[in-house]
């Protein structure tokens, strides 16, 4: 940096520069909010300013944000939370009795009866008890101890906390963490941030993105050369692929984790989002315990859930929890200590979680409406899943695995060589180039497969099939959406005009 004196004081360079800042932070990328989204936001701004484009709105199909895409909040949840925010509303008889009762119970557990007071770092005790009961019910009676439940700021927070706890060692002993390819980029970002070693295992695209233990073993053995593999992350139902693992597969993974001394992290935030015939959500914990004491008393696990997905879609509340199983008591003490550094998770999110695990019962006034709304949301999602698969598989150059669950599809596109070359010219990864063009020319924002990881030489994109404008339910042949899908074909041919 050149130094020039101004008023006798030399001008120097910055104290904190890109060269002396934290090197791990520079490696963090989070594709879901990355450059393509930034460009989408910019385009939206230009549209608002009146710039003319071939489209009037940007369809943001990049993030699993149900409410942003028109899904309505569940009435009961919002009523209770409003009562918690402004308890004077308890006088208002427009609110049903069961909503008031729930609110009173939650407020009774808050300091000064206010959601503005700090809670215990692990989360409000009676809410953890409710979560434990919910898990027991879900898993057919297998006991859940509230002490093993940690409420968190969304599932992401809990996942990062566990990784912070488990990542240690230096050089060849540095902790290795196994994560699928493709994966939800929170994992790769957190691993980069923590300086952990990412061990990628490929999901099998030919077999509907299923997990194969032989592939786990291959990845693990290769990794043992340069790190200390300790953690195995699974996302089920999957993100970005939407696959729902079979029970057999889950058992195989548990067996593998035990053999190889791995800590299992089961990301199950989409557990209520299962649509395909013959598919069923099996919780890792349930399968673990049904495998008998040899496994259920030794395999260490953390499973994660949140209020952001399923039928609630309340991403903005940041509610979630994790349940830890078979953790060494001394290690658990460290975990409890670690979460206390963050003070506590947002209390409204904790309250919301309480309602999710403790919904209206058949004998309560809000039950009928609640069930009606919940069913409507889940069946709309199921219908969209079905349509998505149908539409994509009708387009040449795009193949799409059955959409079994979650909110996404991860179709494979065959890009012509010319397109790949053009991308290289522009210094872009081919699927990023494709997605950027789709954004600029049609106003659709997707995330390229390179953001999630894919096999070398293959290209994908992740589409969130929530937006109503993307998939109207009728008249597929003439719909705007079908024309949009046709675009993909057109683009491919434009890039390769000789065909």
């Amino acid at each position, binding site marked *: 940096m050149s130094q020039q004196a101004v008023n006798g004081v030399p001008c120097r360079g*910055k*104290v*904190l*520069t890109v060269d002396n*800042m*934290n090197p791990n*932070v*520079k490696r*963090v990328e989070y594709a879901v*909010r990355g450059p393509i989204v930034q460009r989408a936001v910019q385009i939206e701004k230009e549209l608002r300013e009146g710039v003319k484009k071939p489209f009037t709105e940007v369809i943001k199909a990049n993030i699993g*944000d149900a*409410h*942003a895409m*028109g*899904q309505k909040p569940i009435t009961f949840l*919002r*009523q209770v*939370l409003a009562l918690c*925010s*402004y308890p004077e509303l308890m006088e208002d008889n427009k609110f049903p009795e069961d909503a008031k009762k729930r609110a009173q119970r939650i407020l009774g557990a*808050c300091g*000064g009866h*206010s959601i*503005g*007071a*700090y809670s*215990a*770092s692990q989360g*409000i*005790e009676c809410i953890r008890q409710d979560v434990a009961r919910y898990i027991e019910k879900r898993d057919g009676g297998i*006991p859940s*101890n509230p002490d093993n439940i940690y409420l968190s*700021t*969304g599932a*992401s*927070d809990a996942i990062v906390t566990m990784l*912070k*706890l488990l990542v*240690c060692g230096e050089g060849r002993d540095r902790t290795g963490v196994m994560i699928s390819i493709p994966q939800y980029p*929170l994992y790769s970002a957190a691993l980069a941030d923590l300086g952990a070693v990412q061990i990628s295992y490929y999901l099998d695209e030919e077999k509907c993105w299923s997990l194969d233990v032989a592939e786990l073993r291959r990845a693990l053995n290769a990794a043992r050369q340069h790190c200390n593999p*300790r953690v195995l992350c699974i996302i089920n139902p999957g993100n970005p692929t939407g696959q729902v693992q079979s029970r057999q597969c889950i058992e195989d993974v548990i067996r593998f984790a035990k053999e190889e*001394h791995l800590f299992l992290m089961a990301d199950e935030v989409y557990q209520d989002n299962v649509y395909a015939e013959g598919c069923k959500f099996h919780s890792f914990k349930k399968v673990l315990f049904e495998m008998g004491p040899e496994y*259920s*008393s030794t395999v260490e696990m953390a499973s994660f859930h949140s209020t952001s997905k399923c039928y609630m879609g*309340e991403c*903005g*509340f*940041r509610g979630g929890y994790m349940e830890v199983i*078979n953790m060494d008591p*001394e*290690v658990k003490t460290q975990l*409890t*200590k670690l979460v*206390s*550094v*963050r*003070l506590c*998770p947002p209390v*409204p*999110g904790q309250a919301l979680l309480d309602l999710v695990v403790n919904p209206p019962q058949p004998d309560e006034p809000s039950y009928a409406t609640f069930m009606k709304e919940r069913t409507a949301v889940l069946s709309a999602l199921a219908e969209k899943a079905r349509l998505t698969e149908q539409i994509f598989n009708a387009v040449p150059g795009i193949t799409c695995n059955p959409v079994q669950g979650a909110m996404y599809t991860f179709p494979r596109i065959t890009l012509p060589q010319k397109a790949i070359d053009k991308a290289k010219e522009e210094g872009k990864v081919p699927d990023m180039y494709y997605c950027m063009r789709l954004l600029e020319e049609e106003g659709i924002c997707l995330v390229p497969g390179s953001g999630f990881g894919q096999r070398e030489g293959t290209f994908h994109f992740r589409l969130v099939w929530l937006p109503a404008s993307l998939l109207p339910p009728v008249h597929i042949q003439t719909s705007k959406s079908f024309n949009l899908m046709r675009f993909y074909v057109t683009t491919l041919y434009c890039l390769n005009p000789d065909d």
Partner: protein
Amino acid sequence: SNVLSQYSSSSIFNEKQMFDGLIREAKMSVLQEISQNVRNIKQLEYAALARRATQIQKELSQGVRKPYKELTDVCWGDPHSLGVKPLTFVRQVLAACVYPELMSSHKLPLDVRQRAQWLLGKCEGGSIGSYPASAGIPEIIQRMSKSIARRDGGVPCNPENVFISPGSQWSLTVTSLLLTSCVYAPLRTGILIPVPCHVTTITSITSLGAAVVPYFLSEEHGWALQVEELQRALESAKGGCNPIALYVINPGNPAGYVQSRKSIQEVIRFASEKRLVLLADEVYQDCVYGKNSEFVSYKKVLAEMGPPFSDTVELASFHSVSKGFMGECGLRGGYVELVNLDPNVVNYISNLNYDTTSVLAQFALDLMMNPPRPGDPSYPLYNQVRNAVNNMLVQNVKMAHEVVNSLPGLSCQPVEGGAFVFPRVFLPPRAIQKAKEEGMQPDTFYCMRLLEETGVLITPGCEYRQKEGTYHIRFCIMASQDTINKALKHLATFHTKFMKDFS
């Protein structure tokens, strides 16, 4: 209280035993396989006090006779827990945002409905359930920037340098993370911190593997920050770590000082000369009681100093909705403003957010920085409550001073701002001896005794670090007058007896 309960559960449930009584195999992950940074996080002195407090609560509920009927917990800066009410305007707006059907009713004042409508319009799909942008909802940040500029008498605030977060502690952690380039001595990143300093700051820094370099505030001079002491601290770091930042908190915690403009200028000059990034924790900026005290932000003073300082000194300032009149600790909302940082470095912050700040917290920030104004329907009540709370806090501080300074063996520097009183306790040698016998820090011993005999829960000075051979206690005055009266009355009775018993 909720916070107490987390320290009391010590039993680890053995699911295995529940099933069939077989002996559990050795656990898979042992302590040695856990991050060293996490293991290094110091367990709080408070933990022991909290455990005992929970036991006492149980005993009280079982009808065990004690000289008191209930616990008085004045440990934490948690106003709502201590009887301070949430602001009506804030809660009305939040409720309307959560359940927009409320907006059709005329029971809510017009300005509440208008604000809720404006805020909801900034959410995708008009719902607080949608994901907000990583750095924060842009329009809210825009408005916040204008408020910050207004606070600082017109010093411009660039919205691109403002990042919303789930609280100031989170902002500090992320900023420290950005600075921490090395965790191995002697090149390990170091950050200067005051003594005394509140625990979450120290933990935020050390849990990243960075080092803290303590500089002592001068108790005799009202906890003043002295540049010579900063110099000494910096020198002491040589060979141990690589100091890159200087953390200051104004108004203070636990010590209740409010820095003068002159003091702030000295700190800025020092940071400039020694090439340190300034981390200015200003969460108590709305809590100033001293008649001759005034909060002025580091950013404002920096701007007033003109070039070269105003163009070059790198500053991060932190604020949150947890303190002040809002007291909304449970919502988890705050922000950091970065001044003069390299834009290339600033770009990396958005990647570190991992979708963390709830929409409600962001709305609370807007409400804090843009309260009702004269002429708005909610203004009269808002203003009245604000004044009432302010008067109450001034009274609390006055009472605390009077009581503490009237007791031999206790003395307190003027509390000009912040949420706490941090008196010095002159413990008799016999008390110190007894504490050692019981394996406790002397001031922890004092607090434990206070708890047993009066049910009042406060925290010991050793929690915050203090000059060797001195002892302090900390308690919160951001509470209802009744709570403070009770706590002070008990403290006075206890202290007199304690000093007599150990004389």
